């Protein structure tokens, strides 16, 4: 038992020194891209003219439907030949794949949240003659934002876990490094150390989003019902298929 803990004590600092950097880099880059992709596609799916809604929907279904690892390999092995520009490098490949894949799921969160802002709010903004940009920025977005945070929370945790695949495009992330460390300290200490680090990252990320969520909801004075509904929807964040409350306003 003591040996186990001393091995764990050896593995943890090793991983914190070597694997953590690539994991965090993939996560942070992926998170930024994910939010951008989610907002652009989500708003397009809800607010765009008909053709744009169809295009955005196809893109979303494509990235949700074809599996992260396939996308990763496609970007890594196929894209350089296709463009003739050479490899993007592991880090950018990883960030791009993670951001696009989880961003597609996020787009559905954004679209659903826009849809959940009551019709009266959209109508009142129109009745006050607000131009589209003002309406979105000042009235709709602050309300939709509070509703999309639970969904983003789940997606961010998924994204932290998703970074474990970046070793497949030759990054030396936590998962890869833990397999190296295993040779010195044995299976359980090595992987348990990696799992602990992943858990702490996911936990911190989730906590941060919870704080944002609480702040946004306090500002809106959202009722219990709306919050619970948003949380429930958040659990379905990985679900697929086309919802039928499609119509933009």
């Amino acid at each position, binding site marked *: 038992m003591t040996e186990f803990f001393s091995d764990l004590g050896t593995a943890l600092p090793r991983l914190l020194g070597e694997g953590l950097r690539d994991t965090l880099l993939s996560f942070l880059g992926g998170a930024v891209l994910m939010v951008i992709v989610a907002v652009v596609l989500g708003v397009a799916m809800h607010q765009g003219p008909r053709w744009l809604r169809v295009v955005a929907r196809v893109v979303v279904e494509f990235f949700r439907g074809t599996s992260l690892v396939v996308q990763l390999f496609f970007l890594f092995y196929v894209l350089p030949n296709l463009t003739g520009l050479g490899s993007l490098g592991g880090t950018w490949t990883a960030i791009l794949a993670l951001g696009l894949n989880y961003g597609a799921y996020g787009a559905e969160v954004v679209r659903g949240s826009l849809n959940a802002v009551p019709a*009266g709010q959209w*109508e*009142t903004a129109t*009745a*006050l003659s607000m131009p589209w940009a003002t309406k979105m920025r000042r009235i709709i977005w602050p309300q939709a934002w509070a509703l999309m945070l639970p969904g983003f929370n789940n997606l961010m945790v998924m994204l932290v876990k998703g970074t474990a695949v970046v070793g497949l495009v030759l990054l030396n992330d936590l998962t890869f490094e833990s397999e190296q460390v295993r040779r010195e300290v044995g299976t359980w200490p090595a992987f348990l150390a990696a799992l602990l680090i992943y858990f702490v990252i996911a936990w911190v990320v989730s906590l941060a989003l919870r704080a944002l969520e609480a702040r946004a909801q306090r500002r809106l004075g959202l009722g219990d019902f709306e919050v619970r509904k948003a949380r429930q929807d958040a659990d379905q964040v990985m679900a697929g298929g086309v919802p039928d409350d499609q119509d933009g306003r």
Partner: protein
Amino acid sequence: MPTDPDHRPTTDARTSEEEPRVRFEDVHKKFGRTTVLEDLNFVVGRGERVTLIGPSGSGKTTILRLLMTLETLTGGYIWVDGDPLTHDRRDGKRVELRPKQVAQVRKRIGMVFQQFNLFPNMTVLQNIVEAPVHVLGQSREQAAENALSLLEKVGLRERADAHPTELSGGQQQRVAIARALAMDPEILLLDEVTSALDPELVGDVLNVLKDVAASTDITMLIVTHEMQFARDVSNRVMMFDGGRVLEEAPPEQLFSNPQHERTQKFLEAVV
């Protein structure tokens, strides 16, 4: 025909005296296959207060929502001060106007909703100041000053910094009225503004509206079930049924001596 509808001044000769404030011309509205309004024609004069009554589904609310451009016309025209609202007639053809043009005319219209629809992400004052600053381009100070005097008028000045959820329904609706008035509309649409309120809160809201009616010359279109209120503020009552105007008259006349049996029945049911 004016040559440049984009820059038509609001007070050119055509739009002044002789043009009514609102004119519905052969207005047609279908939802899917259901026809709600059919060949509807009526005018509302400047400063007139018109109450629309009728059984639910008779199309009263749809009229207000069409005027506020919350619904799209499926046929006909709506003219505001002689300007086309969403569709214009050019060389005998019906042409849809561009959003920018629609926005120009829409600014003259304000609306108060059944469900108040205060913005939950803003305080009471911010709710009122928002559109004047971001739509009309007023300075924040000017808008806030105006907002406070409007709040004074609706009796809620001391709640300026409150959050909408801290207010009762009646108070929220009074804020919504102040918010609509802050845009200085020529036309105010009131869509069942007391229907969502507890009975004891209705009075305050109606008093505020009576006050507005007495102290301004804003044209009003009112949909309500409060017949006493209709009697107090309106010059004219229009009875709707099945998407048509069944009859119209000054309130005292229509309420005391309705011509149609259906009007009679309706009035008996609501009073």
